[in-house]
Structures are given as structure tokens and as C-alpha cells.
């Protein structure tokens, strides 16, 4: 039995990503100037972006699939990677965390996410998830001499380890029932065997692991501590990438493998979504640290995005993907503003910012409006699009709840704006401007405004 050569075209993006990450690890030993590594990372990401549309197909014996669904998610991951590198350059120098491994790990994490989005087999999915998770554990703790960063890493690692174990348990039960790990073949087998308690148990175990990755309540406990302790650039990276990857696998596994128990998982996810929106929005109100506030806000957004999965329609899935795409820009934009300020981690640091730094305040205003969902920003389009799809699927009451929580969210987002524009300045706010950071902010703010004014760009 000779194993035939697989068709490598569908995996070229992943191959390039992994090779560049490995190369960066070696180049790190040679180059003293870490900016070169960042540049190589961006080049690799750009190359991947360029060849990705041509990488459609299935390979490795049907374990790996590159379709329009996965390619869209990969675009989000690549955008996330490029923006993160841009906002990291000067910031990690300031934080004394400028290690070459930083960029290598960012690329490895992105490669893991790409594998997750393309997995047609639960084993590949698990490997991708671990590659992403292990890299982000290290990145969260990359400020080695900072106790909070260490705490973030160890918390994320321990809880992430538990969730991986649950995922493996769920997968093994599923394998025991169907004798396959192929997501599509599992669906076929399950249609023939019908609903059993074991199937429900395995679905719940797998759901817990995925919901942990997207930081949905009640599996969100790690998020505020990890987001606060990790370097801000990594917080931005984690709040978009792993979340989008989590939604990618939820979409793939639940819509395909668990098709015949859709009513069961929809019921569970409805409860989770409502709880997530409640916990995220209500606890965000009492935060005084802006990174913690944005952590709870990202929990709340995970709740909204879950509605797209609950809808159970193609429209719902599309709206979910659009939401994640827009969320990447507005969230990284907000974190970029936190990074640009010398002291920007506490809410009180923003008092009177508008008088002192009118442009920075105006940009923050755009991102906060977008996160709230106020037109003409992209955040409004994202929410409007998502809620329309969910109403069409027949969950009007759920949308009413989501809109109510969205109104609550205005309180804490607009409090930042109020601090900037209506409070007296306490002290001059120093800023750290660099070309790469300016470029990142320019890209994000332009995307937020352009999508807000011309939504046809991303919808349809």
C-alpha cells in the first residue's frame, strides 16, 4: 500500500503560514532588530491573503476542506494578524516584551485558526485548536517580568487545558458511536442511528469547549483576567482571532455533524446566548479598567453573534460572519487607541482627553459608537444585519432581548465618550505615535466608517 501524494493546493495558505512562523523562529536568532521579523510576518500574511481565493478544494483524504466558508474566516484571521502586528511594533518595545518569538507565535496561532476553519475532521480541528491555544497561552504571558501577565497566562492555560480535555471527551464519545471522526460522515451515521443520551452528552461536551473559546457565559470567567493581564496588543488579538475561530468551528460542527439534534442544541444555545448578553453587558457597567470593560464587552458581543448560529439559516450564518468581520476592525481599533495613550488602561485616564488630544478622542468616539451600534458606523450595520436575519428565522423575542441589552451597553461605551468630552482634564495625556500604529488606526477607522456608510460592501 503506497500512500498517494495529496493535492497541496488547498493547504498552501497554511503551509506558507507555518513555514514563515518556523522561519521567524530561526531568523529571530540572527536579527537583532525585531522590526524586520514583524515585516516578514506582514509579508507572509499578505502572500497568504493573495493566494487564498485560489485555494479551493479538499485534500488529505477529505480531512481538510477549503471552501468559501473557511476562506472568509481565514480573511478575518489574516486581517487580525496584520492589524495586531501593526499595533504591536512599538508597544511591545515600550512593554519590554520585544522577543522575536512574539511574531512567530502570532503566526503559529493564526495557522492554528486557519486549520480550525478548514477542518473537515475532528482530529484536524483539535490539532488546530491546540496550536492556536498553546500559542496564545504563551503570548498572554509574554511580559515575563509582569506578575499580572504571568497570572493571565497560567489562568488561561489551566482553564484552556480543561476545556480541551472536555472537547476530547466529546470527540471520543462521538467516535465510539459512529466509528469515524469525519464531520460529514458523522452526520450520516447519526441520521441513521437517531438521538441517544450519549449523543446529547457528547454534543454538550463539545459545545462547552467551543463556548469556552468564544468566552460565552458561564464559561467566560477567564476572559476579564486574561484580557487585563495580557499585553494590550495580545488582548486585541485574542478578542478577535480565537473568538472568530471558535464561531467557525461551532458553525461547521453544529450545522453539519449535529444536524439531526438541531432543536436540542438550539435550545441550549438560546439559554447561553441570553446569559452571555446579560453577564457581559451588566458586569461591564461596573468596570473601572478599560481592558476589563472591553473584555466584558467582547463577552456581550459573543452573545449577539451566537444569535446568528441559533437562527439556523444560511442568512444567520452570513450575518454572523459579517458581524465578526466588522467586529475585528472596531475592536482592534479601540485597543489601538488604548495602546496609543501612555496611560490608557483606566477609565479615569480618559477624562478631558478631547481638550488635550482632540483627534485621539474623536477616533475613540468612532470606535465606541461602532461597538454600541450607532449609525453611521459599521457596528450598526453588523447588528442590524444580524438582528434582521434572526427575526426572519422567527426569533423575534430573542432579538427584543438582544436590543434591550444593546441599549444597556450604550451606558458603558458612552461613559468613555462622556469622560473624554464632558469631564475636566486632570493631566496632559502623553501619546506614543508611530507610523505602524497610525496605519493600523487609519485602516480600522476607515473600514468602520466606509462599511457604515456603504454596507453593500460586505452584505450580499
Amino acid at each position, binding site marked *: 500500500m*503506497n500512500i*498517494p*501524494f495529496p493535492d497541496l493546493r488547498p493547504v498552501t495558505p497554511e503551509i506558507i503560514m507555518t513555514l514563515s512562523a518556523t522561519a521567524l*523562529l*530561526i531568523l529571530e*536568532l540572527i536579527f537583532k532588530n525585531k522590526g524586520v521579523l514583524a515585516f516578514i510576518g506582514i509579508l507572509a500574511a499578505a502572500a497568504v491573503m493573495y493566494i487564498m481565493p485560489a485555494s479551493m478544494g479538499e485534500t488529505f483524504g477529505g480531512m481538510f476542506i477549503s471552501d468559501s466558508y473557511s476562506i472568509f474566516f481565514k480573511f478575518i484571521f489574516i486581517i487580525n494578524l496584520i492589524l495586531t502586528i501593526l499595533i504591536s511594533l512599538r508597544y511591545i518595545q515600550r512593554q519590554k516584551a520585544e522577543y522575536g518569538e512574539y511574531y512567530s507565535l502570532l503566526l503559529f496561532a493564526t495557522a492554528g485558526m486557519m486549520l480550525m476553519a478548514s477542518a473537515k475532521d475532528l482530529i484536524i480541528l483539535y490539532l488546530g485548536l491546540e496550536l492556536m491555544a498553546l500559542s496564545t497561552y504563551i503570548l498572554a504571558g509574554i511580559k515575563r517580568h509582569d506578575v499580572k501577565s504571568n497570572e493571565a497566562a497560567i489562568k488561561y492555560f489551566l482553564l484552556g487545558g480543561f476545556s480541551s480535555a472536555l472537547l476530547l471527551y466529546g470527540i471520543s464519545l462521538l467516535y465510539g458511536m*459512529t*466509528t469515524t471522526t469525519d464531520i460529514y460522515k458523522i452526520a450520516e*451515521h447519526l441520521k*441513521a442511528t437517531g438521538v441517544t443520551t450519549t449523543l446529547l452528552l457528547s454534543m454538550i461536551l463539545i459545545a462547552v469547549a467551543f463556548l469556552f473559546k468564544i468566552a460565552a457565559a458561564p464559561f467566560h470567567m477567564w476572559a476579564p483576567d486574561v484580557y487585563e493581564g495580557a499585553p494590550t496588543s495580545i488582548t486585541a488579538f485574542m478578542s478577535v482571532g480565537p473568538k472568530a475561530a471558535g464561531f467557525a468551528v461551532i458553525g461547521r460542527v453544529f450545522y453539519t455533524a449535529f444536524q439531526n439534534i438541531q432543536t436540542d442544541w438550539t435550545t441550549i444555545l438560546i439559554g447561553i446566548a441570553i446569559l452571555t448578553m446579560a453577564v457581559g453587558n451588566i458586569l461591564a457597567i461596573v468596570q473601572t479598567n478599560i481592558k476589563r470593560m472591553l473584555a466584558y464587552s467582547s463577552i456581550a458581543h459573543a452573545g449577539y453573534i451566537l444569535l446568528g448560529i441559533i437562527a439556523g439559516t444560511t442568512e444567520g450564518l452570513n450575518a454572523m460572519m459579517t458581524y465578526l468581520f466588522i467586529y475585528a476592525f472596531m475592536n482592534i481599533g479601540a485597543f489601538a487607541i488604548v495602546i496609543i495613550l501612555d496611560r490608557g488602561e483606566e477609565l479615569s485616564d480618559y477624562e478631558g482627553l478631547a481638550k488635550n488630544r482632540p483627534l485621539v478622542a474623536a477616533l475613540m468616539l468612532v470606535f465606541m459608537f461602532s461597538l454600541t451600534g450607532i449609525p453611521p458606523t459599521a457596528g450598526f450595520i453588523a447588528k442590524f444585519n444580524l438582528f434582521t436575519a434572526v427575526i426572519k428565522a422567527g426569533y423575534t423575542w430573542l432579538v427584543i432581548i438582544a436590543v434591550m441589552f444593546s441599549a444597556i451597553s450604550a451606558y458603558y461605551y458612552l461613559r468613555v465618550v462622556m469622560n473624554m468630552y464632558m469631564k475636566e482634564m486632570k493631566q496632559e495625556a502623553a501619546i506614543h505615535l508611530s507610523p505602524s500604529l497610525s496605519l493600523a488606526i487609519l485602516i480600522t477607522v476607515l473600514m468602520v466608517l466606509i462599511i457604515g456608510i456603504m454596507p453593500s460592501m460586505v452584505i450580499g
Partner: protein
Amino acid sequence: MNPQIDKMTPGSYIPTDYLPVLIFMMIAVAFGAGTLLVGSLFRLRRPYKEKLTPYESGNPPVGEPRYRFSIKFYIIAMLFVIFDVEAVFLYPWAVVYNKIGLYALIEMMLFIVILLVGYAYAWKKEAFKWD
């Protein structure tokens, strides 16, 4: 429908293929327990203080057994695990090498090259230096 699935319905399927493993485990337990039992029946019993110390002919233990190890041990342990796993993967590959052909050779070379990158990295980062 896959006939194997019917066989694997919980409760009705008995994995007879694994019966030798079960018998082997039982023999192993019986052998160990039996040896200890026979020994305790026939040996002389004359305990005195020196004989009951943990290391009869060694140094008497000093201090608590639990203390913090140097982090260097962990680095060595982790590096050992990585290259140990590499060796474990090489064995089954080498056993069926004749049957699986060129593709498997390329795959294995890739695997080793990636590990070599890690090795070079660890070397350059002085993970192997004790001081």
C-alpha cells in the same frame, strides 16, 4: 449502514479480541501478588532499627522530601519529552517503511526538520547549558 456499528451498540458488544490482554493482566497481577505472598510465608522475621531505615546501606535521609526543584530540570525534562516522542514516532514508521513509500519518507523528513529547527532554537537559546 456500517455493520460494525451494530456490533458496537453499548451492552451487546463484547470485545473478544482483547481477551488475551485481560488474561495477561490477570496473570501479571497474580504473579506479583503470589511472589510477595510466598516470600512472606517463608522468610525469617527479625526486625531491628537499622534494617527498617528507608536506605538500609545508604546515607540516612536529611530534611523534607518536598522542596522546589531548579527550573533547569523542567527544561531538560521538556526537551527530553519532545525528542522521546520523535523516537516513538520513528519506530512504527521504520517498521512499515517498505510498504508506505516515498510520501511517508518525505513526511517523516519534514517532521524531523521541524524538530531540528526546535533543537537549533533551544541550542542557541542555551537551554542545554546548565549554568
